């Protein structure tokens, strides 16, 4: 902060001028100072809680929740462990991205069809809800019979878990088009596809991005769950979790857990960034 310690910057940092709209006047730096401190504080709090929990465990049970510094040294800093965990993370990432991609394409199609045909919405919606509520564990034998053990079987689990938000949010966004705008398009003889392209879909963008963020996180969970069901094939994070639990290598297990969280955070941030970029000029949800 010393680099900007000239007078104007300092006064602005201390108190943004309340006269003008804050988004215009308040400099970026002031914002980042006030908004960044919770991150390290939150991290330290969680770390402290972890140490406390481990401390309170009986020494002979401590392997279940190893010290954080042991996780770092035996997981993250161990070349061999980190090598295989990174390779697994990459596999899981590919699986999650594929599953999310299919969810987006299929879900988008279903959403648009539901918007176009009321009867299709009536017909499909109950099963979407049912699909979301279905216990994956219970149908895993079915999936295995239908799809085998491979990449595709795993991605089906991932798709089932990450699918629901896409069509439902898309539909909500398209249905909330302003009545007057629809009148305007009707008045000038716009076709249904024109209304879809120039009105309904852009209008749904904020809710689509909200859905992407939710589904992206779900797709990581889905990929790991899928890998845990179908243990065969190249080991992703899901297989590693099972493997390390069996071998009682809990430091590595927690490394895997942290990696999967990081993966979830990365996709979440990516879609947040994309959403802000696309919506920044017109939608209230975007930050400047």
């Amino acid at each position, binding site marked *: 902060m010393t680099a900007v310690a000239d007078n104007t910057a300092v006064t602005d940092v201390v108190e943004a001028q309340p006269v003008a709209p804050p988004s215009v006047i308040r400099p970026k730096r002031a914002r980042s100072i006030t908004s960044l401190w919770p991150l390290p504080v939150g991290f330290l709090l969680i770390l402290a809680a972890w140490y406390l929990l481990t401390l309170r465990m009986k020494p002979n049970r401590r392997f279940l929740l190893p010290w954080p510094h042991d996780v770092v040294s035996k997981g993250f800093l161990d070349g061999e462990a980190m090598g295989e965990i990174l390779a697994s993370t990459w596999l899981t990432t590919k699986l999650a991205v594929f599953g999310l991609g299919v969810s987006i394409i299929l879900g988008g199609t279903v959403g648009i069809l539901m918007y176009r045909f009321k009867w299709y919405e009536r017909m499909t919606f109950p099963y979407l809800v049912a699909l979301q509520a279905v216990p994956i564990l219970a149908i895993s034998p079915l999936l295995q019979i239908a799809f085998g053990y491979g990449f595709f079987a795993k991605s089906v689990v991932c798709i089932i878990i990450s699918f629901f938000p896409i069509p439902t949010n898309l539909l909500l966004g398209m249905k909330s088009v302003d009545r007057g705008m629809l009148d305007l398009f009707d008045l000038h003889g716009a076709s249904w596809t024109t209304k879809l392209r*120039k009105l309904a879909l852009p209008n749904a963008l904020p809710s689509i991005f909200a859905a992407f963020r939710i589904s992206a996180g779900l797709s990581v969970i889905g990929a790991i769950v899928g890998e845990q069901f179908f243990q065969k094939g190249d080991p992703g994070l899901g297989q590693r979790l099972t493997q390390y639990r069996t071998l009682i290598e809990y430091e590595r297990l927690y490394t895997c857990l942290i990696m999967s969280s990081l993966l979830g955070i990365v996709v979440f941030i990516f879609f947040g960034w994309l959403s802000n970029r696309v919506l920044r000029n017109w939608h209230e949800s975007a930050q400047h």
Partner: protein
Amino acid sequence: MTAPHPGPSGLSLADRSPSLGFHHISMTFPDGTVALQDVSFTVNAGEFVTVVGPSGCGKSTLLRIASGLAQASDGTVSADTGSVGYVFQDATLLPWRTVRSNVELLAELHGLPKAERARKAEDAIAQVGLDGHATKYPKQLSGGMRMRASLARSLVLDPSVFLFDEPFGALDEITRERLNDQLLELFAAKRFASLFITHSIYEAVYLSTRVLVMSARPGRIVGDFAIPFDYPRSPELRFDPAFSELTGHVSAALRGAHR
């Protein structure tokens, strides 16, 4: 987009061919509400007709019928128009488009080539005095500016008939009066046939060549006033005794309509 209409530049006050005619229009909604009852009048080219009436008297329904957005349950509408400009109560700008892109929208829907679209949008933006704001998004504009952008959007198609559905109702008085003057300038330049809806008597008399008073539901025409003042009209007209007298008459008719 081959409008049979010769275009507004050839029109003058003397041109009295009816641009928009309502013939015994009645409107009953499916729930049995009678919104309009036997409404007949015409709006000629170069005329500025305003309908004033209490809220919910079916004024807006009249515009929806005129534009084809709604079907009258009885009666006919005649419109000799190539293109109708419809300015809604809200600006209804697409928030994800810039002002320029919003103004181009209708030309886009009608399939005009890109270069022509851009040129016409440029002209329309200048006509409503929004030059310099073309690349802004609606969120960045004031209510008055949004309404002007909405007006520019309709101007692009050079409509021979303009329908205004309480376009300035949500604006503060100062902005509203400024926009009234701007609208009159456009009207003087283009001489489109205008059908304007408002609940402001002052606005009605100030803008119009003719003011119609509508009763509460079911909506009927209960007063018809010719407004004799010449265009261009200056803001001082609002304080002219003759102006006050006319608004008094309209107001009396409106009060009668409430009974």
